[in-house]
Each structure stands twice: as structure tokens, then as C-alpha cells.
């Protein structure tokens, strides 16, 4: 997020696109509700009529995967009606002319044909966004889990720069991150092309600095491969061994059957986890790890706030904190790693990472710190891009609408979209074992519109089989107007409803994110 979570409540206009905020980020949802109670305008763009969509002044129920058309259309209106922030565009950005030319064809009438949103609604929303003092954009996987995910994000960024709604309080471009420490994992360099703080592995001086700190001659310069490519490599035999810590790709990645097949082909698989997950079951060695309650450390949240995790109880059985296990593996492989505590590790991180330079456990005792925080005196940075973008000038990246990789056809006439439920989390490893959440919300269902249900002669509660070109699952149908005609929806939390057997592994060419939000399926009544 460019801005802190508290800023959401202060925005005059909230544009939430592809985010089921109140279910997936309930506490950020509270800020949205607070803003609405205070008189702010909320506009939600989502194919589903979610709770947050019901709260909105305008719900743009767009066709799945048509976000770029919608966003470009808004920009078209704002430019055509001369509502854009000329001062900001002139002083802070570049390539505006190219962007202007690119969005020219996205007239509201043209966009209506792609998105299904009435031209008048688009105009109203575009004007609303452009005219207010502070507008914020919230988005999550509804924007990113498309083959054009990166372009979707460009389109969002273009819109915010066009109106100057960035680099100031109560505005900004705010992706709400889905996992407790997905921000931190990225910050820490758990990515193929960067070390900590997004320092590129391709840069000689960066590598030299890390190599010297780590007591080595050199570090590999060639960028690594992403999850999808790893699984691809495993199935082709180029990847022989994998080490998986605290992840469950068998349930979380697209085309689950393919994932299982790929992991099965490995010579050696190590999984380090707190439960014997579907992925761990495929491992050669499983290492028992400590849960968050059994270790010290830090998480970095979606607004870049680094916060303490504190040990409350001893690890169960012989389980060990992940950091200790990693030290022991390194040591066993001839590279001694010795840290007295996670605080010690943070010292090393701070010394190698400019954006974490001023972060220490002593300071975190006083509360979380939002990076960049380059030195111990720095208070942290709640709002990014104030006065200047990190690259200097904000660059408009013109993008074009492309249709999702797999569109419905005669054989698979419906669009399947996946997401989250309020009572559960990710692959259900934790939330299915709480003694409470799974008791209250114990079975998953398929949301289907009454029109589609009527066509298929499906009643509420009927068992149905959902199939795509890659696989099928069975579950109960729930007839609801949350989904429009032509769309069905379910979550990926339930191992018994392994919906990722169906999803399309087609990926965004830049970020390699799979297109979970659109694949073509058919639904049949089974009993």
C-alpha cells in the first residue's frame, strides 16, 4: 500500500476494484465502512455483489477480466472532460501523451460493450474520482489474478497519477495483501530476481556486498525462476530437488493435478510445515516447524509496517522454529549459520537492507515501523511517493484490454472465479483445525445465479459437478444473486473441494500470476 490503512477512513472517494474487502480483509473493511458512515463515496467494481458492493453508492458489476477497459474508460472520460490534475501530470509524470493516445478509443460507449457497464455509470464514477480532494483505490487479487494482472495494475496506477491521487494522505494505490507476511517475504528477497529490499541480483555491487557479508567469494547472478516455472521444471526433470517451507502449492496453485505430478517427479522434496499438508504428503522428508505462537520474529503487513511476533508457548513435541531449522540445514551442508535469536537476524537484515536500516527489536517494542526506515532516527514512512516517485517521474504505462485466456464456449459455458470466505483462510490448513471456524462454516458450496440454475434444473443444495478442461470437483449449489448470470464462484479453502484442479494455469507474462479469476467450466447436477 502507498498509504496506511487508517487513511482509507479519511478518503473522500474510495474506488474498490477486485477486492472483497469485508470478507478477505475484515479490519480494512471496517475503515471502508467508517468512511461510508462519514459520508465518503464508495464505488465497487466487482462481478459479484459482495457485502462491500452492497454498501457502495455505485456497484460496477463488470464482466470478469474487463478491468483494463473499465480503468481506461475512466481515464478517457477524465481527459475528455478535462478533469485531470494538470499540475500533477506536468510536474510529477512522464509519457502522458502516449497514455492519452492509448485511452482515446476507450469511450464509455466502447467500454460498455466490453464491461457491461452503462456509459452513464462510467461517466459518473470517473467524474467522482477525478473531482474529489482525496481518492483512494483499493484492489486485491481481483485485479492481479489475470493473465493481464500486471497491466491491470498499470491501469490502476495510470488513473491515480492522472488525478494526482497519490503521494498524499488519504489517497494512493492500495493493494491489500492477502497473507500475514507476503509483504515481508517479498521484502526479504524470497523472490527469484531480488535480494532484500528489492536489490536486484543482477547488480554486481549488490551481489558483492551480500557476498562479503555472507563470507563468500561470489553469489549467483542469473535470476532464478518463479513457482510456475519451478513446477514446470520439475515435471520436465530440470528441477531435481525442492525445499518448500510453509506453503501448500498442491492446493494453492492452479491445475492441482499437474502440481502433484510435477512434485512426484522430483528426486528429493523437503517440506517444512506445521501440519502434514497435501504438499507435505508428497515429501521425502518432512520437518516439523513451530507455529507463530511458538517463536519470536517480525511480520510486515500490507502497509509496510514491521511488527513483532512474540513467543507465547513452547513448540509442540520436537517441532522447532523455522529459523532454527534453516540454520541447522545450512550448518549440516557445511555453511555454519549461528544466530542467538531472531533479533540477531534482524540486525543482519538491517545492515544489508536500506529500507529496513533503522529497524531493530528495541525500536519495535515501542510499536510497528513502516518502511522505508533507513536509519535508527528515521520515524518510518507512512505515505509513499510524497513529492517524488521512487523512480523520479511517475511513468504512464499505456495498456490495452485483452480478453481472459479461456472464455466460455459451448462446451464450458460458465465462467468460474475463485476467492475467499470470511470464516476461512487460504488452503484451510489452519482454519479447518480451530474447533470453531470449521464447526460454524463446515462445507463449501458453489454460488450460482438463479437463471443459470433454472437452465440446468439445479435446486438450492443440490450436489453438482463442476468441470473444466483440467479436472472436476463435486459440491453443493447455492442459488444466489451474489453472482450474475454466467458466473459461478467458490473458494479454494476446502481440501475436499480442491477447486484448483479446475483453474487455468495461464499466467501473466510479467508477474507469472495465474488467472484464478477466470476459467471456463460446466456445471452438472449429479444426484
Amino acid at each position, binding site marked *: 500500500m502507498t498509504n496506511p490503512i487508517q487513511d482509507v477512513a479519511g478518503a473522500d472517494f474510495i474506488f474498490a476494484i477486485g477486492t472483497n474487502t469485508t470478507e478477505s*480483509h*475484515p*479490519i*480494512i473493511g*471496517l475503515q471502508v465502512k467508517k468512511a461510508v*458512515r462519514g459520508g465518503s463515496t464508495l464505488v465497487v467494481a466487482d462481478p459479484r455483489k459482495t457485502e462491500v458492493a452492497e454498501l457502495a453508492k455505485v456497484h460496477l458489476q463488470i464482466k470478469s477480466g474487463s478491468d483494463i477497459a473499465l480503468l481506461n474508460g475512466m481515464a478517457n472520460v477524465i481527459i475528455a472532460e478535462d478533469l485531470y490534475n494538470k499540475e500533477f501530470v506536468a510536474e510529477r509524470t512522464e509519457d502522458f501523451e502516449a497514455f492519452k493516445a492509448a485511452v482515446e478509443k476507450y469511450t464509455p460507449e466502447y467500454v460498455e460493450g466490453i464491461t457491461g457497464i452503462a456509459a452513464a455509470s462510467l461517466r459518473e464514477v470517473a467524474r467522482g474520482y477525478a473531482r474529489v480532494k482525496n481518492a483512494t483505490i483499493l484492489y486485491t487479487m481481483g485485479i492481479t489474478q489475470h493473465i493481464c494482472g500486471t497491466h491491470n495494475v498499470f491501469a490502476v496506477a495510470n488513473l491515480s497519477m492522472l488525478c494526482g491521487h497519490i503521494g498524499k494522505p488519504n489517497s494512493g494505490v492500495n493493494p491489500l495483501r492477502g*497473507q*500475514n507476511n507476503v*509483504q515481508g517475504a517479498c521484502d526479504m*528477497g*524470497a*523472490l527469484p530476481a531480488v535480494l532484500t529490499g528489492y536489490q536486484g*541480483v543482477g547488480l554486481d555491487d549488490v551481489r558483492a556486498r551480500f557476498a562479503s557479508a555472507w563470507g*563468500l567469494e561470489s553469489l*549467483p547472478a*542469473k535470476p532464478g525462476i*518463479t*513457482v510456475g516455472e*519451478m513446477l514446470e521444471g520439475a515435471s520436465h526433470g530440470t*528441477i*531435481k*530437488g*525442492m525445499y518448500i*517451507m*510453509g*506453503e501448500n502449492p498442491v492446493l494453492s496453485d492452479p491445475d492441482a493435478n499437474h502440481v502433484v505430478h510435477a512434485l512426484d517427479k522430483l528426486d*528429493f522434496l523437503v517440506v517444512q510445515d*506445521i501440519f*502434514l499438508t497435501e504438499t507435505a504428503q508428497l515429501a521425502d*522428508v*518432512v520437518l*516439523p516447524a513451530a507455529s*507463530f*505462537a511458538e517463536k519470536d520474529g517480525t*511480520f510486515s503487513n500490507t*502497509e509496510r*509496517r*514491521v511488527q513483532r511476533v*512474540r513467543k507465547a*508457548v*513452547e513448540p509442540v513435541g*520436537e517441532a*522447532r522454529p523455522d*529459523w532454527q531449522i534453516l*540454520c541447522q540445514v545450512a550448518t*549440516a551442508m*557445511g555453511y555454519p549459520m549461528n544466530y542467538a535469536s531472531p533479533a540477531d537476524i534482524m540486525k543482519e*537484515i538491517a545492515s544489508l537492507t536500506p529500507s529496513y536500516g533503522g529497524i531493530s527489536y528495541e525500536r519495535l517494542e515501542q*510499536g510497528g515501523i513502516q518502511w522505508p526506515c533507513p536509519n535508527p532516527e528515521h520515524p518510518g514512512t507512512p505515505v509513499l511517493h510524497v513529492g517524488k516517485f521512487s523512480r523520479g517521474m511517475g511513468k504512464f504505462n499505456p495498456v490495452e484490454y485483452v480478453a481472459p485466456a479461456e472464455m466460455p464456449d459451448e462446451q464450458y459455458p460458465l465462467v468460474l472465479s475463485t476467492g475467499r470466505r*470470511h*470464516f476461512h*483462510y487460504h488452503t484451510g*490448513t*489452519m482454519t479447518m483445525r*480451530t474447533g470453531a*471456524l470449521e*464447526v*460454524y462454516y463446515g462445507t463449501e458450496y458453489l454460488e450460482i445465479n438463479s437463471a443459470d440454475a433454472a437452465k440446468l434444473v439445479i435446486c438450492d443444495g443440490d450436489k453438482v459437478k463442476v468441470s473444466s478442461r483440467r479436472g472436476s470437483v463435486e459440491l453443493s449449489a447455492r442459488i444466489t444473486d451474489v453472482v450474475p448470470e454466467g458466473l459461478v464462484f467458490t473458494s479454494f479453502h476446502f481440501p475436499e473441494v480442491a477447486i484448483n484442479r479446475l483453474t487455468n494455469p495461464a499466467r501473466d507474462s510479467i508477474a*507469472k500470476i495465474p488467472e*484464478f479469476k477466470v476459467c471456463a467450466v460446466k456445471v452438472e447436477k449429479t444426484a
Partner: protein
Amino acid sequence: MAEVTLTINGGQITVPQGSTILNAAQKMGVFIPTLCYDPELTIDGSCRMCVVEVKGARTLMISCATAATEGMVVETESPAVIEARKTILELLLANHPLDCLTCGRNGDCRLQDYAYRYGVKEGGFAGAMHQYPIEDDNPFIVRDMNKCILCGKCVRACAQIQGKNVVDYTYRGFDTKIAPAMDTTLAGSDCVFCGNCVAVCPVGALQEKVLRSKARTWEINKVRTTCPYCGTGCNFDLNVKDGKVVGVTSCDGDVNGRALCVKGRFGYGFIHHPDRLSKPLIKKDGQFVEASWEEALALVAEKLGGIRDNNGPDALAVLSSARCTNEENYLLSKLTRAVFGTNNIDHCARL
């Protein structure tokens, strides 16, 4: 901003105009009991517990809703104030079960705190008592409306923190109770079980089902930490008894204040679930066999080292975790790059 100076219990204090007497007293460190007041919620002024004596005023004034004015002279514990508070407590206790013996909130209950402070041993009046059935048809929250003192904090928390408006006052007079629409149970309503009403309840009317049946409040050690679910980064207190996490309660989090969602507040049960892995496992002939750490670590080092040496570092790949700590992600990146010798590391940021 304009300021006013007033006298409280003989001491002078200057506060911004618009402050209440309660605000001023708290700023001075002077204790005033409150039941319906909460700094995060709108002022209700219904419980009358916070009455004080203001010189020249006809009646005792409620300090939570009375603005401090220039030259005001306030007594917070005068005989008249104490008598009023005692009577209020006696009236509340006249229709409140005296079951601190087994009440889950014993030790963390305002009604009890104030009864002890003012020496009110029981209800001073005999009369009708509520006989509501206890509502526990959901796995998260127990509602015992017999213990409700109608302070309305839950109503305001649901409306002003959670924005759901699930509960409100229903019926009239003695029959007044807090209920969802049509007087259903929470499970039958739109309730999302965030438990933010439980966090503000000053008595035992709303309790965390598991936590309050497993431990007395004074047996609990609280450890402040960060939620392991979504990326919002809410803070809360893990409640620990005898080396086990028995519950979660709100603290004043940087991001969330006291608000939590159902997963954060009630989703901790996995920590001590019997399915937790407690020993290293090695697959032999297709079956997992328990192993010692030494054996497992040696095997991992040998196999991964073998692949690195025979097939080259890029034949290894690593998935790190968006669920683990920063320190652990850093170490796995270091292990991958410095020991395995490859940049093949990624995690599920895209999922």
C-alpha cells in the same frame, strides 16, 4: 484552541474547551467508574455510574457527558456521589446472577470491581430477576442476557466499529434486552462473530466460549503478537495458561485498535491441534517413518548437496513462505543463494 480551568477534588486542571469532566479527571489521574462509557464509541450517558458532584448544580452530573467549564468545582468521591454509586450498583445487582464463583469474567468485570470498591455486597432490592436461557448455539460467543446491564456498548460497537448493526435494544421496561432483529440468536442473524462486542462488554453477558470455560482471568498470561492470517497485521494478546494458548483478546493494536475479525479472535485452535507435526518424518518405502532431527537434517543435507554437486545448483528450487517471519524468509533466501548456490527462490505472493 480555547481552554478551560476547573477544580477537581481540590486540584486545578486546564483542558481544551469541549472536554468532559471525565476527560479532565482521567488526565489528572483521578478515578471515576464507568460502565457505558468507551473512548472509541459515542457517549451514551445511560449507566449513571460516573456521576460527580458539581458545585452549584441542582443534581449530580454524569461526568462522561458534561462539558468541563471555566471555574467549575467538582468532587468525584463526595458522600453524595458514593451513595448514588452504591445505589446504582445495588439496583444492578438486584437483577444480576451472583455467580462469580464460576463466571468466566470473574476478575475482569467492572460490576465486580466497583462492587468491591464501594463495598456493595449484594443487590439491595428484592424483585423480579430475568430468567433468559443462555445462548450458546455458536462455537464462538456465549450470550447470557441475565448478566447484561444494558450499557449498550455492544450495540454501539456493532454499529460504530464493526458497522453491522446486528444487535440493538428490544422490548420495553424490565423486559428490555439486547437482541438481533426479530430476537433471534446471533447464529440466526447477520452476525460475523468478530467478537468486538465481547471485547467491550464490561460484565459477563458476552464471553468468548472456549477461553472463558478453560481459564480464570487471573490464571492467564497475555503475550502481545501479530495475527497470522491476512495481511492487515492486527495485533492481539495470546492468552496463555499452563503453557497453552487458550484464547485471544484485544489489545490496542497499531492497525486495528481493539477490533479483530472472527479468524483473528477465534482461529487460534490450530496451535495445539493433535494433527500438528511433532517429529521429523522420513519417507521409507512410500510410508512416513518418525526420525530424529540428526537423521533428518543429515539426509536433507546429503540429498540436496548431492543434487547441487551432480546436477548443478539450478537443479534446486525453493519455495519460501508468506506465512513465516521476515527473519525466516531472509535465512531461506540466504540458504538458497549462499549454500544451494541458486536464485531459484519464490513464494506464493501471487496466490
